[in-house]
């Protein structure tokens, strides 16, 4: 975040208000979601968002192991967010680091806020996210993939959970940070929205923003989430609609 003293900082905003990849401040990167991409999982989804490639799978509700983790009156939601060694520029050692563990926790809590967990006492709903290729916003991409996977798995929820990272780049509040914007920008704010209620169940922020910028960022994020929500629904309708295939979809190249 905001590499102080870094050399070769790229031009993040043109005088015409175009970002490093030509987008305007309120434009999303390209997004394509494939529901039911895997065969073994109860529910799954593959998300290609900008240069991110993220796979999510849901198993459950199912028996809890180890048993002492189970809750008598509801299902527990366990999430594992993991990055493949080759998913980032500098090869990452396999295994969960502290960043991955924190992300896993906030994502699990986001889902626990919308899943009707009381339906399934003493069980676990396991959400797995694997980042195969990363370019900023992977926790949001993972959340979106997992949300579609949960619907694919027939888990009852208040709503799908669109998510996006808003940020501040060259003094401008922008939607959907890509890698260079995340690395050299001034703020990063991932968020997840429950469209039905208009409320946020994931919210993190790192950087520098004044009150006006924050208000603008929240509004921009909500708008972005509503657009992402449409693609999530489209992906599920494609799989389950009258012309959809029942089997797992081929993962797009």
């Amino acid at each position, binding site marked *: 975040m905001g590499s102080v003293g870094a050399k070769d900082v790229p031009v993040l905003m043109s005088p015409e208000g175009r970002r490093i990849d030509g987008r305007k401040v309120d434009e999303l990167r390209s997004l394509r979601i494939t529901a039911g991409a895997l*065969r073994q999982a109860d529910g799954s989804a593959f998300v290609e968002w900008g240069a991110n*490639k993220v796979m999510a799978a849901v198993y459950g509700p199912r028996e809890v192991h180890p048993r002492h983790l189970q809750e008598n009156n509801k299902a527990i939601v366990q999430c594992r967010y*993991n990055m493949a060694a*080759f998913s980032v520029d500098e090869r990452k050692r396999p295994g969960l680091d502290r960043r991955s563990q924190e992300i896993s926790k906030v994502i699990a809590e986001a889902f626990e806020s919308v899943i009707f967990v009381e339906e399934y006492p003493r069980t676990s709903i396991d959400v797995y996210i694997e980042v*195969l290729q*990363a370019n900023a916003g992977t926790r949001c991409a993972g959340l979106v993939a997992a949300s579609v996977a949960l619907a694919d798995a027939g888990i009852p929820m208040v709503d799908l959970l669109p998510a996006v990272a808003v940020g501040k780049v060259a003094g401008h509040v922008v939607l959907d940070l890509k890698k260079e914007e995340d690395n050299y920008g001034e703020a990063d704010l991932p968020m997840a929205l429950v469209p039905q209620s208009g409320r946020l169940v994931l919210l993190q922020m790192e950087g520098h923003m004044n009150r006006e910028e924050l208000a603008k960022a929240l509004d921009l994020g909500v708008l972005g989430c509503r657009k992402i929500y449409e693609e999530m629904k489209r992906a599920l309708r494609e799989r389950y609609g009258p012309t959809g295939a029942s089997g797992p979809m081929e993962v797009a190249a």
Partner: protein
Amino acid sequence: MSDEVTAEILTTHILDLAKNGRRLDGRGSDDYRNISVEPGFVSTADGSALARIGDTAVVCGIKLEPGKPFPDTPNAGVLTTNAELVPLSSPMFEPGPPHPRAIEVSRVVDRAIRAAETIDLTKLCVTPAEKCWTCFVDMHVIDHGGNIIDTASLAALTALTHATLPSQRFGIAETDTPLAVQHFPVECTFTRLGDVVVVDPTVDEERAGQGRLTIATDEAGNIVAMQKGLVGAFSPEDVKDLVERAFRHGDRLRAIAQGA
């Protein structure tokens, strides 16, 4: 602990079918499921591929980074392989430290790549005893429908044959060059079902199986690695016969890996 206990009637049925030369999905004992590879699947890697055999899918990413040679091999680069059997890919896998199965897959694939001298490691030397390339071969299983070994090995070979040495980025040379691959090993896995030995087992066939034999061959008629796994036995005659079958399948898998 696994979510799944296999129904004994299914195991018995698979073995009964095998007696008559049949398999659950209608394949013959020497048929692979549908095979496909997609090189360049991951742009953050220096070489990559998504390989699918039937329902099984593995993504392999190659990362090349400057490092230091091992003291006892100052003129060689370093090759390291790892297979991740992540819980996303199967109800049988749990999060946590590497399962022995994951370790076995890594080592079996690594053995074939090394023994076949897939990459001439001396070509990865930059400055003897000081600087060399480290080649990471990371295999990420994303869907486990059976026969992870062959799928991972196919993904690895495809990724290696489409990999580029990022010399420019690390200031080692002016231009990037393809990673030099000189041999093309592939794994071919068989499972015994009673008296019949079938190739490319599904998850149900692996569970019903009585012994597994993986044979890695290269393009020059060499057997470069073998691994017998699970509980069961193969006679020397079995092994010779399976070696012939492995060469035939290997040639086809090689063509798929290189031709993509």
